[in-house]
Structures are given as structure tokens and as C-alpha cells.
């Protein structure tokens, strides 16, 4: 078992709240992601057993959401929005700048396992484009200077 007692208890708790078991897939995936940091086939199987929804339906839902990493990622998962508003305001060069600063390509993780960089579809914060999400937090109206400060701060926290 990958999921620990706490996660399992949490998933079971959610099951009571929804009229349909299928509705628990996303909350359960979120719980698993919080615990493990990424998702995997094994996790889908475990969730499928707990909430009694076919394995494939858990896997399908997980694959749809890019917010769930499917492989181990660094401590900080940087997701830069590349959708239209952000693209118009320089998302591309933002990704380029991050690649340069972190010394990795999009999709990679820094050797110290601190940062993983990916780009994703619209995160619903178009009014403050360009933007990115790092773990649970939004960073908006980004400029190079802002990015420098954010990275520095996160590095310091380690």
C-alpha cells in the first residue's frame, strides 16, 4: 500500500459527502497527491479499491488533469500557464527565463530535487496574466524581477 492510514481515512470521510461514488475520484486523487507528491497506477488501483469505482475510471480522470504530476517531481512544482492570455503577455519567454534560471528544460527537475518546471493550460487567472502556480499558490502579473525574488525566497526556505 502506498496510501497511508490518514489518507485512507480522509478518502473514506469524503465518500460520505457525495451521493455518487464516482464523485469521490477527484477528492481522493487530491488526497493521494498531497500525501505522495505525485500519482501512479498503483495509487489508482488503491483508490479504486477504496471507493469501489473501476480502476480505469480513476486512471482516466487522473490523466485528464495536468495538475496531478504522474511522476515524482521536485519539492516545488512550477506550472506556468501557456494558454492564450498568458501567451499574449509573454508566457513563452517566461518559461525560457525559468529554464535559464533553473538550468533545466521544461518537464525536468533540478538535480537538487527542489524545482520541477512544466507549462499547463489556463489556470483561470487570465486577468493577472502572465501567471504561474507553484504547489498550491498562484503568482500573478509576473515579471523577470518577480520571478527572481520568488525563486530566491523558495531556495531560502529549502
Amino acid at each position: 500500500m502506498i496510501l497511508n492510514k490518514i489518507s485512507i481515512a480522509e478518502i473514506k470521510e469524503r465518500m460520505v459527502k457525495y451521493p455518487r461514488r464516482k464523485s469521490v475520484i477527484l477528492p481522493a486523487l487530491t488526497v493521494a497527491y498531497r500525501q505522495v507528491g505525485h500519482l501512479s497506477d498503483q495509487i489508482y488501483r488503491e483508490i479504486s479499491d477504496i471507493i469501489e469505482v473501476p480502476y480505469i475510471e480513476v486512471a482516466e480522470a487522473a490523466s485528464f488533469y495536468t495538475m496531478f504530476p504522474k511522476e515524482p517531481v521536485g519539492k516545488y512544482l512550477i506550472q506556468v500557464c501557456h494558454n492564450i492570455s498568458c501567451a499574449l503577455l509573454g508566457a513563452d519567454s517566461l518559461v525560457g527565463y525559468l529554464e535559464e534560471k533553473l538550468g533545466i528544460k521544461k518537464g525536468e527537475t533540478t538535480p537538487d530535487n527542489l524545482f520541477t518546471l512544466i507549462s499547463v493550460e489556463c489556470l483561470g487567472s487570465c486577468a493577472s496574466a502572465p501567471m504561474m502556480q507553484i504547489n498550491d499558490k498562484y503568482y500573478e502579473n509576473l515579471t523577470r524581477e518577480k520571478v527572481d525574488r520568488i525563486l530566491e525566497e523558495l531556495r531560502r526556505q529549502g
Partner: protein
Amino acid sequence: MADTVATVTLTINGREVTVPKGTTVLEAAKSVGIEIPTFCWHPKLKPVGACRICYVEIEKMPKLQVSCATEAMPGMVVNTESEKVKEGRKAVLEFILINHPLDCPTCDKGGECDLQDNTFAHGIDDSRFDFNKYRFIRERKSTFDDYRIGPEIVRNQNRCILCFKCVRANKEIFGEYDLGVFQGGNISEIDTAPGEKVDSIYSGNLVEICPVGALTNTDWRYKIRVWKTQQVKSVCSYCADGCNLTLWKERDKVYRVTSRRNDVIDEGWICDVGRYGYQLASVEGRLTTPLIKKGDKQVAATWEEAIGLIARKFREIKDKKGGVCIGGLISPQQDCEALLAFSKFFRTQLHSNNIDFRTEYKMLPEKESPYYSRLTSASFRIADIENSDTILVVGTNLIKEHPIVHLRVRKAVNQKGAKLYTLNPFTTKSGDLSRDEIVHVPGTLEAFLNGLCIGLAEKADGEGNVRAAELKARLEPNTTAKAAEICGISEARLNDLAEALRSAKKISIIVGELVSGSPAREAIAAAIHNLTVVLNLNERGQAAILSRAANSKGAERLGVMPSLSKELQQKLKSMWGGFPETEGRATDRMIHAAKKEELDALLIIGANPVASFPDGQFVREGLDKLDFTVVADLYETETTEKADVVLPLSSWVEQSGHFINLEGTMQRFEAAIKPVGNSRPGRQIIEDIAREFKGGLFADAHEIAREMQELLNVEPRPSFPDAVAEVKFAEEKIEKDYPYPLFVVDEMHHFGHLTERSRSLAAFAAEAQVEISPSLAEKLQIENGSLVRLESETGKLVLPAKISEMLDNDVILISRNFSGTAANMLQMRKKRIDRVRLIRVDEK
């Protein structure tokens, strides 16, 4: 006044159309012959409106509407062909084609592709999309990005138009969860669950339902262009469901089989055995010429020599010892014509009643079986299953034994809210669907049924049509508590089932081969009969023991059995001007007689009793004693090995004829190709022998058709009062050394002894395995695939183990379909339940 269905009236293309309320605009248009293009719509699936090609214009609605998901409303004015509609559809196609590879020249769907046809119809010849197309590349070695998702199915995602019909049918209709939609947007893809494959018994339907060339199967891929083929109407020759098929052939080869939708039977679905089973017609190694045994070799001979020899030998035996010293076994997969000819030859020329079609099941004890006959001939409609609110499935792994009946049960449960209960000696796939999956101690079924009858009568409290006291006097066990204890089931569950049946409005009771194949069949049938009496089922449902093979019903109705009902005997006597007086022998008795040298010859058509009839040792000894054995089959088998004359038999695609399905419906199938080699259809072989022996059996084709019809007019149901039958359960002694009950069954993707020759079916399973539950595997420390030795009192076998998630008690299943694994060697003809011990073989 009759029931009135609420209707709505609307206008489509200027025509007034009236349809039942709830009909979609698309179906309303179809009902008056107006065709609207579709991709994602399917008559048997819930509409999803995914593809948008079915756009129509509806007055007062500002935008185009998808007709497949829009309900027809009173007064609607619909236009299906306006300029706006055409523009809309064109735009949809342009979108769909954005990433489409346009590889029609190498696509198998070419010529029968909805995307090709619709694009052609809308005259799209340009795309405004100037970028590189998105390409899915899974297996880089492959030019066309083909990717195998199951033993037979190849997926090409680039061609997929995301109609989701495959995934929807798989989940909605088949209840299979092995295919899904992954990712999203323009990189959505159809794929298996990670680490799994698409290999259910219904998998071929996914290929048939795909409107484009995204899902193809290796059966048909790159073999032929569809427009070069001709279509032939056929009917499946495997299980008794009787699915309607289309054979696609060119010259002397069949290239594929698809369904030919028949809503009262198959609703347009077929199982993989029916779809790929045809392949065995044209595989290397077919017997193509008669063989006659000379010394200890079988050498090629002409038909004249072979038939001459058979006639001579039969005459000799008949003259010396009588025709009753000759017996006949014929496969229930032979057509009605062959079965009738067989019976007529034995009864009118040999004056012998020694014929049988049951060559796989234990026949002991052999006596009159009125209750069994009654239940096998009871009227039963597949389509009526849907109208039942309560369904009881007894003694069958239904999805395997009758895949299409299983789909109706699924439909009743999932779409109409029926309650399903299963009653079996082991867990089966239908269990997932059921309210309660009752697993009884093997060999105690009638005890459970007795308990159920008592429980029902007690609930009725004197008001039902049978009093509990009356039942108690005739049944043993005769309390619910005792019954529950014997069967290893809690009394509460027994009572719950009784309650469900009591309160049901309409009931279907479906009984399968674990009953018809059991030597206790008559006792169990009597117990089921009691249940129908207690439930007053005549007025509220149906109950039947389903026949198993494509024409088992035909064999019963036409009298291919040693003892027949009075009515049938009478009919035959008057039709043929005589009927043998001597008692006939069933399969078991024939072999027994052979062993005692009371039977000298056997004529066997299409059956392989040496490997399938319980028990193996007994059959071998019996056949070895025979003076003269004639065996007709498609391939060499364990039985042809023992023959003095081997005759090459044609398969059903090489002949036309009739099968009678489990409902009693006679269906005609047409020949697609000429007999392979020098083979001959069963009917012809029998007629040839008869002609040489004594004279022709039938004046002409009309006579055989007329005789068939007359026999089918005979009421098949033995009539006797609906009184309670006596059912006293007697426990079978268990030898401690052989603790595990053994069931010899069909492998999921096989039927009978020949399907292993089908390349596609062999891709699903090519050898026998010992299926055991995960808990038994753990107890005996057996791993998946490791070798195990099975030992019964009479034989042993070494086979790989397969740990099956389906099973959860200590039983063992082995398949009967593979040569080289004669599972019947482990069976004992006198035992009700075969038992074995299981030992792990440690490989060195």
C-alpha cells in the same frame, strides 16, 4: 381503451411526423426515411452529442442543434438539409479532419468508413489548417502508429474521431472496464487502463462499432478491400443463443464475420467466439479426404471406397447381430437437416434407437427425466428477460455459456432496475451485477431449492397455491434451516431470496450447464419445477434450462435421443411408417455396451467423445473394444485416431442449413464457400451412407423440410399436472484425499473442441489452465503460471495455474477445449461432483 402512448407531432423538411414522446429528432427523421449523418450516435447507446455532425436547424432556435440528443417537441419545425445545416456539418468535418492523417489508401475501413462517406457527401476538399498535424506515436517502429490494445485489436489513434462509441458500448452494454478515454482536448486518446488489455468476450464488437479505422482487428487487417467481398447471411454455430451473422467472403474464403442485428435475439452484438470461430474453416491441417485404416495406419481413400466399406460393415453387423449393435453420436452443432437424416438412418434403416447428441455431459443415472425434459423444452424468450423485475440465474457462468443472454440480463439490471440473484457452486462474472451472489456447497443445489420452496410457502402463510405442510412431506431437507446448513448459506440469505421472489411481479429463471451437465439433473429439475409451482410462474414469468450448443434444441426437437416423448414417437412412426421397438442407449450406455462387447460399431459425426465425455478412461476402453468406428470431423482429433474410417466433414460456412436456438426459433444460414478439399457436409455424409446401405432417406429437399416442420409442430413439453415433485436430497460421500471440487467448463474464448484452431481465438487462450481462486493459490503457495498437478481417483494432469479474480472459493475449473489436455481423464462418470487434489510442481 388500449394503452395510449403519448405522442408528439412535428414537422421535418416540410413533412408532418408523429412519434412517441421521448423520441429524438434524429429518430423521428429516420422513422420517415430522412437520413441525417451521425458519428457518435448509436441506436443502443445513450446519446452524448459528442461529434456534432448530426446538426439540424430548428425554427426559433438561434443555433444549429444536434438532432441525436434533442428531443422531438410538439410543433417543432426542423430542417435537416438547409444551407446553414450543410455549412455547419462542413465545419464539423473540417475540425475533425484537422489532425486526421488522411491515410485512407492504407486504412482497412476504406470503403465502409463513415468519415470517408460524410466527407465525400459534403464535398470538403480543403483545410484552413496550415500547421503540422498532431501525431500520436506509440510504437515508433510502425509506419502508421498502430498500437495493439488487446489480443486482436489494433488502435490507430490518429484516425480516431472521438465519438466514444467504443468506450461507451464497452461500459454501458458489456459492463467491461478495460477501455477508456485518457488525457483531454486534441490529445485525447482511447486506451486501455494502464497495464491492462482489451480481451473481454465482447471485444470484437468495439471494432465493429468504430465508425472509422481507429480500431481494427488482426482478423481482417490488410487482407482484402471490403468492396471486393460479398455478404452471406448466416447464424452462429457455437452457443445456443443463435446470434445472426454476416459472413464476408470473396471466392472461396471467408474474411470476417460481423453481426446482423436481430433485436429479439442479439440486438446487434455478438461474442468473439461467434466472430472469430469461422476461421477454423480454413486453417492448415483440415481433413480433406477420407481415410481408411489399413494395419495400424490410416491411409487416404476415395469417398466411394469409404462409403462402400461403411455400408458393408454396417450390413454385416446388422445381419449378424442386429442394427441395435450400431450406435451413433452426432454433434449438436450439426444442422437440423443432418440431425434428422441421422435419426432417420438409424431408426428406419438400422432399426436402432442408439443415437445421442450429448457427448460432453455425464448421463448417469439413465432413466426417464420428465421434469428435466419439461424445463429444457419450456418456452423462453431472450427479449422477455428485460421485462422481468427479478431474475434468478442458476448453475451457469452465464457470460461464458450464453454471452448474449448475459447482455439481456445486464440490460434488465442496469437499464430497467431488475434484481438479479445468482445461485452457483462458484462465483461467476454475473455476480458483480447481482443483489446477492449465492455460492452453495457444490452438489447441494436441490437442497437449497427445497429450502427456497419451503421458505416461500411459509411466507405465503397458507394463501399460496401450495401448502407448506404438503411440501414438507415431499421434500428433504424440509426446513429452511436444514437446507441452509447443507448448502453452507445463511438462512437469512435464503429467506431474503424467497422474499424477493415472492414480491416479484415478473420473474425469469435461467438455468445452465452446471445443471444440465450434472448426473443429478432430474432431481434439480424437479426442485426447480417445484419452485415454479410454488411461485405460480406460469402466470408471472419464465423458467428454463437453456440448451447449450447452436443446435442442441434442434437435436431435442427432432428426436436425436434414445428415448423420446410419446408424441414424438407417434409422429415419427406415422411419418416413417415404423419406429424401432427396442430401447435405445444414451452415450454412456453405448460406451458401456461397447466395453461389454454388446455394441460393435459407432458412427460419430463432429463429436470428440474421447477427449470430452466423462470419464476419459471409460471412453477409451469402450472405443478400443469396438469392431468398427467411423468418425467424421474437420480435423484429426483424439477420436478420429481411434477410427477405422475417418471422413472429412465440412464446417457450417461451407453449407447451408438450419439451427434452432435456445428459444426454439429455427433460423436458416447460407453457405458462403464450397466445401474445403473433398469434405462433405454432415447431412450429405449420412445420406450417402444410407443410400449405399439401403436407399435414399429423402425423396427431395421438400421432403426433408416437410418432415422437419412436422416434427417441430409436435408439442415439446411433456404434460403432467403441476403437482409438487418429490425431491429428497442425498449427500455424496467425499473422499478426504481429493478435497477440491472440479468443474470442466469452456474457456472464455472457446467453444467445443475445434475453436483452438482459430488463430484469433488462440490469441486469447491457447492452452488449458487450472483456474483457482487467489485464496486457494495462497493456501497451496501456487503462483500464476506455475505448474500444478491435479490428481483424481482416476487420472492426473499437469497444467499451468491461473489465479482468477473471479473465483473466491476452493473449486477448480479446467477448460475442455484443448487437444492434449483431456480434462475428462480426471472425471468419474458415476460421481456427481468430480474431486481432485492439487499439488504444486516444483520445477527444477
